[in-house]
Each structure stands twice: as structure tokens, then as C-alpha cells.
């Protein structure tokens, strides 16, 4: 991960925002009684699109791939979790936003861990 404060805070806020948006979209779209698997796939796609929209807004200040990949992943993750939850039980608007935001933060945390594992020299002469 990028340890510069501006980027750390920016990444956290961008992914939190995507998560909340994906959670709220799940609350709007999915109803209790939906097939859970269908709800999961539909909201993963919707969350990814939400991530793309947020990326287009924040890319100018926060960067390119380092923003695009995490926010799309976080949107997908939040859509998946909250979409599935909505299919199983009714959630309040606040709960959907809170679970979505938490999933967004989980998404950026997973990306940071993956980045720590993958970055650096992979092949030498």
C-alpha cells in the first residue's frame, strides 16, 4: 500500500463511499424473498458499476489503477454481502449503509494485503 497519508485517507474514504452506495443500492433494489444467488450476482455487478462511477470522480486526485481496482472490488463485495443479506431478511436503510460501508473498508483492506503479498520483484535475471 501507499503509505503517504493523503493516499491512505483518500483510499479509505473512497472505498467507504463505494461500500455505502452499493449498500444503499442493494436496499433499493433487492427485496426479501429474492433468490439469494441471483441477488448476489445482480448486486455484485451493480456494486462494480458504482465503483466505476466513484473511480471516475476521484481518479484525478487519487490515482489510476491504485484506485480503480480497489473501488470496483469494494463495490462488488458490498453489493454481494448486502444484496445477499437483503434477500434473506429486511434491513433498515441505516443498516444497509453501515454494512455496505464496512464491506467497502474490508475491500480496501483485502487489496492492501494482496498488494503487500504481490508487490516487489517477481522475476530476476
Amino acid at each position, binding site marked *: 500500500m*501507499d503509505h503517504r497519508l493523503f*493516499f491512505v485517507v483518500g483510499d479509505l474514504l473512497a472505498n467507504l463511499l463505494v461500500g455505502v452506495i452499493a449498500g444503499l443500492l442493494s436496499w433499493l433494489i433487492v427485496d426479501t424473498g429474492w433468490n439469494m444467488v441471483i441477488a448476489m450476482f445482480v448486486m455484485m455487478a451493480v456494486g*462494480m458499476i458504482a465503483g*466505476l462511477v466513484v473511480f471516475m470522480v*476521484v*481518479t*484525478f*486526485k*487519487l*490515482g*489510476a*489503477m*491504485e*484506485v*480503480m*481496482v480497489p473501488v*470496483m*472490488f469494494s463495490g*462488488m463485495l458490498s453489493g454481494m454481502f448486502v444484496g445477499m443479506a437483503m434477500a434473506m431478511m429486511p434491513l433498515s436503510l441505516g443498516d444497509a449503509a453501515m454494512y455496505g460501508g464496512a464491506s467497502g473498508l474490508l475491500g480496501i483492506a483485502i*487489496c492492501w494485503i*494482496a*498488494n503487500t503479498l*504481490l*508487490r*516487489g*520483484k*517477481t*522475476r*530476476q*535475471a
Partner: protein
Amino acid sequence: MPDAVTQAKWDKIAPKFDAMAGAGAEERWHPFKTELFSNMGDGNILFLALGTGLDIPVFPKGKTITAIDISPKMVEQAQERIAAYDGTITAQAMDVHEMPFEPGTFDQIFTSCTFCSVPQPVKGLEALRRVLKPGGQIFMFEHTGSSFYPFKPMMNVMTLLTERFGPAMNRKTVNNVRAAGFKIDEVSNVFLDVVKTIKATNPG
């Protein structure tokens, strides 16, 4: 004749390219590009895909660089940064597939976010190998597709959108470098396995 479709695409973007590329990306990549470009030696250097010259401030001082870009509008936009460089940059609008340079003209070649946009990447890299001296090195800062789920399908989906107005997000650039006949010296991931630096040698 240069690839008219690609040229028109980048000519169209040129006036707003700096805003699109964004200060954020350049700031993120600054330390890694500085390290990569610090490999610039005193011989003939080719820099491929100059764009609007966003990378010029990261070049070490006092180098003699030939820079090319397929888009004349991009080269036009880069003039101010070229003039500000403390060294010599000769910029020309040129298609990588049709470079008129003699074989083995250059000691080193540098690219920066280039092979996400060259329509025929292996042919483009073969053209670079032709103008690079045997034993000469190519240094690349590139974004590529990922090998890992779920990033891989995400990059594939993104490419469907981004290729219409700019770069592809799912190129296998390391494989392409190898397919063009280079010997890979080092691959270093900058972010996940998506943004990376590649160093390779022309075995001759």
C-alpha cells in the same frame, strides 16, 4: 502510413489528456518512475509514447533523448515540457511500427504506460528490438491485466469500456515482451500484479 484509427483516437484526447491522466496517478507513480528513469545512461535513448510529456519532469538531467508518439497533437502539447527539460529531447510524431531508424540505433529504450495502447503490442515490441543495440536494455513502466481472481475478470470488463477511448486494461505485457524476443531481466510489481516495471535485454 501510421495507424490512422489510433492516431485519431490520441489526437482527440490530446488537449484534455493531462486532466484525464490526472495529477493523482503521476503523484502515486512518481517514486517508481524516478527509480526506473534513473537507469538512463549517456548513450542514445529512445522514449516511446511521449504523450503530453508528463514523464519529462522525472527524467534525469542532461540526457539526449529521442521521443516519439503516434499523435502529432500530443507532441504539440508536449512542447512546453520539452523546452523546460535540462537536456536534449528530440520529439517526433511517429508510429512505432514504422520507425525509420537504422537497426541498433539506440543503447536504451524507455516506455511509460505505452503497451496498453499499441494495437499490435508484439509487433510494436519487435520493432523496438530492431532499433535497440544487441545487449541493449528496454525499461518499461506499464499497467497490465491481473492473473488473480477477482481482479482478472474486473480488468477484462473494464477493457470493454476503456479501449473505446484509450488504453486496454488487460494486456499481458510481460508475455508480449518475451514473445518479441527480449530476455526478461526483472519484473517488479508496483501495485498488485497490475502496475509493474519490466527490464529486458535484446539478446541480439
